[in-house]
């Protein structure tokens, strides 16, 4: 097991190196001149030169790449180009807000979609099943934007059940007052695709021989579904949750924009609009690293969920 994990970490290095190279050269070759972005058009030549030296842009490209690599591993990205806030501070202060809405979303989504998927798989082939499948197809074709726009208008503005937007400093107030509407809407939107997906996972298992055997032995339908089918469908479910996990750290940036939640996703979007490159670069590199780590953890978890899996 340990040797497996070590080997996987070793294999991650080339990919991480590739991500660093990709991001560095993408911004170096195709990005704008940082000095022009920072100083504006009216800056004096002296100021431009001093900025250039300050950012290390007067050095050669390999040297700059080396500095970039150092930044990645020391977490020292300097300051934001536009707000002068240190990049690590930006991450530390924006992440809690993102997690406050994304963790409930992820938990509710998984629990509800598994329930709905099992229910639909149980009545497979019936009229209800087909009606739900058609409904989800139509629900999927409407843009995410429409759900948030209408939901915010209806529940926040017209009915006034929730505040339209806002955020406070207390976690409890956020969870109770400001988070429910965004969480509700996000879960509502993701329920259609997730139910379809989980239904297909369960349908794959429901046709298996062991289900027929269990049924022949007189095991109750509930026990078959929850003990046999659910356990065997854990691997695709786990994979699906793991794919969604890195997204938790970016937050659904659309939700954050709509509900004025000071999270990481909105911060990255603002950085894109202001050409604040270091924020985008840091976010991209670290989230790519995080994705790789999550994939590794998922692969190890397979072993616990399904003892038949051998890690090679």
């Amino acid at each position: 097991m340990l040797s497996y994990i070590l080997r996987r970490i070793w294999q991650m290095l080339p990919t991480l190196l590739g991500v660093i190279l990709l991001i560095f050269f993408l911004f170096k070759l195709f990005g704008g001149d940082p000095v022009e972005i920072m100083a504006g058009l009216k800056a004096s030549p002296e100021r431009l030169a001093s900025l250039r030296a300050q950012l290390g842009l007067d050095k050669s490209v390999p040297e700059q790449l080396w500095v970039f690599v150092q930044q990645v591993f020391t977490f020292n990205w300097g300051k934001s180009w536009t707000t002068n806030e240190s990049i690590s501070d930006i991450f530390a202060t924006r992440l809690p807000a993102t997690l406050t809405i994304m963790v409930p979303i992820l938990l509710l989504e998984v629990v509800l979609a598994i329930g709905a998927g099992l229910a639909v798989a149980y009545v497979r082939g019936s009229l209800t099943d087909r009606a739900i499948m058609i409904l989800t197809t139509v629900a999927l074709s409407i843009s995410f934007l429409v759900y948030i726009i209408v939901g915010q208008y209806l529940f926040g503005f017209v009915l006034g059940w929730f505040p339209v937007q806002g955020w406070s400093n207390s976690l409890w107030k956020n969870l109770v007052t400001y988070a429910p509407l965004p969480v509700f809407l996000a879960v509502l939107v993701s329920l259609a695709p997730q139910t379809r997906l989980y239904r297909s996972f369960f349908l794959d298992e429901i046709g298996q021989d062991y289900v027929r055997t269990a049924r022949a032995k007189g095991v109750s339908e509930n026990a078959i579904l929850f003990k046999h089918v659910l356990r065997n469908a854990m691997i695709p479910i786990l994979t699906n949750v793991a794919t969604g996990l890195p997204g938790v750290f970016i937050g659904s940036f659309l939700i954050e924009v709509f509900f004025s939640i000071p999270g990481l996703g909105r911060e990255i979007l603002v950085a894109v609009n202001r050409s604040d490159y270091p924020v985008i670069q840091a976010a991209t590199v670290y989230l790519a690293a995080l994705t790789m780590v999550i994939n590794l953890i998922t692969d190890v978890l397979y072993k616990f969920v399904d003892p038949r899996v051998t890690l090679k």
Partner: protein
Amino acid sequence: MSTDIVQSLPQSPGVWKQAWIRLKTDKVGMVSLYVTLFFIVLVLAAQLGLVARDWQKEVGVPFAAPTLVGKIADGTQNAIVETVVGPNVDISDVDPLAPRYKEWEERSAQFKTTVTVKADTLPFGADQQGRDVFSKVIKGAQVSITVGLTAALFATLIGTILGAIGGYFGGRIGDFLEWVYNVFTAIPYILLVFALAAVLKSGPLASTLGSGVWTVVIILSLVGWTGIYRLVRAEYMKHRSREYVMAAEAIGASNASRMFTHILPNISHVVLVQLSLHVVGFIKAEVILSYLGLGVPIDMVSWGTMLAEAQTELVQGKWWQLATATLFMATFVTAFALLTDALRDALDPKLR
């Protein structure tokens, strides 16, 4: 001689013909095909300027309601401006401009002023500037569908070529492409989109590309090729050692010819299904990018920019632009998604 005999034998239908026969029996598939074709014709007509050419013209009063709803009396349109009527004092003896009034009146009479009658209601209503929502939604369909289709075509092209090379040759170049694939998939989708958007928006390419739709197409195709690459690569690995490919090698077909004239037609159903899956995904992505201001420029209209405008309109109770854009988009996307399902079933009967 022998060719005559072969030709006179009953021919077995080709793969595509068989697929078409199967598709024709699928009612849902055929309906969605007609709906999709209708939209494609609409897009072509808009491209040629046959419909919705003057979508920017202000044909209705601001926020003209849909015909079904009827005219909305909000008091502002028909408000009577009350002026204080007092004795009309003749001040022409002190007014220094008085002698010229007559000349100005004559001059202004030479110009014809036409009063354009603006419609109070339009079939699908009007937006804040009085532009017809129906024309806008057709123009928006043109932009959104074109972006979705073009980006999907490019993504498929990149994915297919790289997948073919990686799967067919394997070895060093295959490993290299796998590394590139791993790097691209390690970065969360949306962050890659943001990074590319940041670079294309402010970098040296911004001036050559303009703020046109090309930026969106480039971003989406650079991000979207990975899934297609993976599938095509797997197919090529499966096919490269099949007998027909060896036979092609034996008769002296070059690598390129084996890859693209022999193997490609045999896996083209995989590519086609992937292509149409990506069209739907990219149209949805374009809508969101345009809403965020990273998509099509302000002077163009797409379903995304319509939804962005609709957000502020909704608070004022003007729901028709939102409803129309959603209706059109949902119809097209549903039809296209169902068509994709039908295509997959028709092209690969074993899947059932």
